[in-house]
């Protein structure tokens, strides 16, 4: 009985203990469950963020900038990956020792290195855009506190070729000059954000782009032909050196399409190291700088006269033996002439003849024709900073202004305006919009935009054009002022110009000139129109002496490159095919 009671009591106690433990475990499980619910459900997002922030990192990188090609798809500008070296000076304990280690790998002096590393700053740049090899060498040194920031660098493999046209971009990848600036929105790669996951050793095991869009910029295909550009630049350099000129520029254009094949300027600059050159050399002066064209304007004065119907090529004009008074001023000719024909006024470049033609045509008609040729307005070429030149409304012209404009004084034009106007004559009177970019493609080469030839307007009638071509052809004949512009075997239509430069006081300098030659060739079916402007030549200053030979060189070499054969008249070749009959 006792045993039974004792046993029951023991069982009761045991059951109580079990119940107690059960309750304890239940409470513990409830606590764990509640905590798990709190962690997994309520704090889920926050804790996930905290955890991922430990091993995940968002990395922003700028996309590669687009490539610029010439018309034959030769690369003119390419982007390549580089690394910029930075440092966190507060994390560097021995600046002197680290400076010593870095010295042989970076192109910085020991003093600058020490100064940079000892600065009280969170971050400093050590050297921008080092080569991948240099960056690898530095990484091997395993220096704590150095930062390696990847990026892209622009490379201009042709160095100075077309430097002023291409321009350059800054360290942040933004276009600053030239086409790099003008087409920056297309060329610039978009910023792409990556999320990378790293393990405890810092190795990346997962990488994910935030947006699926392409980060590379678009490519530009230019109308520029790098070979013609080179020919023009070399001819210009030779001329500037030969005549000890201050500078020179040349533009080559296809008259029928408005495609610019070359815009050369000397002195040149290398966009790879643009900081080493004067800002004066960066500008694309054929587009941005106006100048007085001189006698070249006689072509357009003559065109206005022919359009008005007042003159024919055989009309006679008295050139007053070299001195003529008009509007209270006296106009002189370089070589005195008496009674000469309208055609000879242009051929011999008579200022008096041009002034007399303009007087008879009247200011309104002259102004109208000049504006039809695009003077006084921008051509709309796709380059930054284009000038409209200066052509005052004819109502403001005094008598002397009217006479001066007829032979290219009191008016300013840009080289691109002048070549575009002459191209209109070469193109049967139809003026095209000059263009330098042919197409824009995406990174895979698919065309996304094209710049088709665009007609601006008809400047003059075809009848006037035919006469003007004959007159301009006579300029390059043996008697004309531009005879040195003719490469053997080709017919050239052109006009010389020698313009006195205006100084800062607004008066003409006696010994500072612009020597100009503008023309096109071949006469019958013009393939190329070229202008050459030489600024302040010292040894000679006439356009026909200084600029015309440069024109000849450019045309001759370009035509050879373009496979445009010289005119050879009739040649007969006797060709015999040898018989291969048996026994013959």
């Amino acid at each position: 009985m006792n045993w039974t009671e004792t046993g029951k009591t023991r069982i009761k106690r045991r059951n109580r203990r079990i119940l107690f433990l059960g309750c304890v475990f239940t409470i513990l499980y409830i606590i764990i469950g509640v905590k798990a619910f709190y962690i997994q459900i309520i704090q889920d997002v926050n804790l996930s963020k905290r955890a991922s922030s430990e091993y995940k990192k968002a990395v922003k990188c700028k996309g590669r900038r687009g490539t610029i090609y010439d018309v034959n798809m030769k690369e003119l500008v390419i982007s390549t990956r580089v690394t910029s070296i930075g440092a966190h000076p507060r994390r560097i304990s021995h600046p002197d020792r680290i400076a010593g280690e870095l010295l042989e790998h970076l192109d910085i002096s020991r003093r600058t290195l020490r100064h940079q590393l000892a600065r009280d700053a969170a971050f400093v740049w050590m050297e921008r855009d080092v080569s991948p090899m240099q960056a690898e060498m530095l990484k091997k040194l395993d220096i704590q506190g150095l930062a390696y920031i990847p990026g892209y660098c622009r490379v201009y493999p042709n160095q100075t070729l077309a430097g002023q046209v291409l321009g350059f971009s800054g360290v942040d990848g933004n276009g600053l000059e030239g086409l790099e600036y003008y087409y920056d929105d297309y060329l610039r790669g978009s910023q792409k954000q990556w999320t990378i996951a790293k393990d405890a050793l810092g190795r990346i095991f997962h990488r994910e782009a935030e947006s699926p869009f392409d980060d590379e910029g678009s490519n530009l295909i230019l109308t520029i032909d790098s070979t013609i550009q080179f020919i023009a630049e070399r001819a210009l350099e030779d001329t500037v050196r030969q005549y000890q000129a201050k500078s020179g520029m040349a533009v080559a254009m296809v008259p029928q399409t408005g495609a610019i094949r070359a815009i050369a300027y000397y002195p040149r600059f290398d966009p790879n190291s643009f900081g080493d050159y004067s800002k004066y050399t960066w500008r694309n002066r054929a587009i941005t700088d106006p100048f007085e064209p001189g006698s070249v304007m006689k072509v357009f004065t003559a065109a206005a006269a022919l359009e008005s119907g007042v003159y024919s090529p055989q009309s006679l004009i008295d050139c007053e033996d070299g001195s003529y008074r008009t509007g209270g001023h006296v106009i002189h000719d370089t070589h005195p002439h008496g009674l000469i024909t309208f055609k000879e006024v242009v051929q011999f470049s008579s200022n008096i003849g041009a002034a007399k033609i303009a007087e008879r045509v009247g200011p309104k008609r002259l102004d109208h024709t000049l504006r039809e040729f695009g003077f006084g307005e921008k051509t709309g070429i796709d380059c930054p900073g284009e000038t409209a030149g200066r052509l005052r409304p004819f109502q403001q012209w005094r008598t002397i202004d009217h006479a001066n404009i007829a032979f290219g004084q009191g008016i300013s034009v840009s080289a691109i305006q002048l070549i575009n106007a002459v191209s209109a004559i070469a193109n049967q009177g139809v003026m095209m919009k000059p263009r330098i970019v042919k197409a824009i493609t995406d990174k895979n080469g698919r065309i996304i935009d094209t710049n088709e030839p665009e007609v601006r307007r008809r400047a003059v009638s075809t009848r006037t054009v035919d006469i003007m071509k004959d007159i301009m052809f006579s300029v390059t004949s043996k008697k004309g002022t531009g005879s040195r512009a003719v490469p053997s075997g080709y017919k050239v239509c052109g006009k010389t110009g020698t313009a006195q430069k205006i100084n800062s006081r607004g008066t003409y300098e006696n010994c500072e000139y612009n020597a100009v030659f503008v023309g096109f060739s071949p006469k019958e079916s013009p393939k190329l129109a070229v202008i050459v402007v030489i600024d302040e030549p010292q040894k000679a200053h006439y356009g026909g002496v200084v600029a015309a030979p440069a024109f000849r060189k450019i045309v001759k070499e370009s035509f050879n490159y373009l496979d445009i054969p010289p005119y050879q008249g009739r040649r007969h070749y006797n060709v015999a095919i040898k018989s291969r009959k048996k026994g013959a």
Partner: protein
Amino acid sequence: MAARNKKNGKAPSAGITSRTVGIFLVLLFIFIFEFFLRTWCGVQCIRVGYEITEATERQEDLLDRRKNLEIELARLRSPNTLNRIAEPRFGLVTPKPDQIVVLP
């Protein structure tokens, strides 16, 4: 089953217990297998992640190398370089018009 046992007034049989244990063990095995499978998948995922990262870096390096070769090629093909070789080394010049024969 418990109701039937209660109805029969008998204690739970050893066979039913072992069946329950068997089911329990199978479930336990499935859970453990799933645990290992998940772990293996996670490890594989990270391993493939490393491989993808490595391959991506290699691809980028190769693309960079190609770009650098393109730059080198463009530099070598530049008219200035060609002219420097053509004129002084080989004596090449632009032909004169009378040296050009146009075949009819």
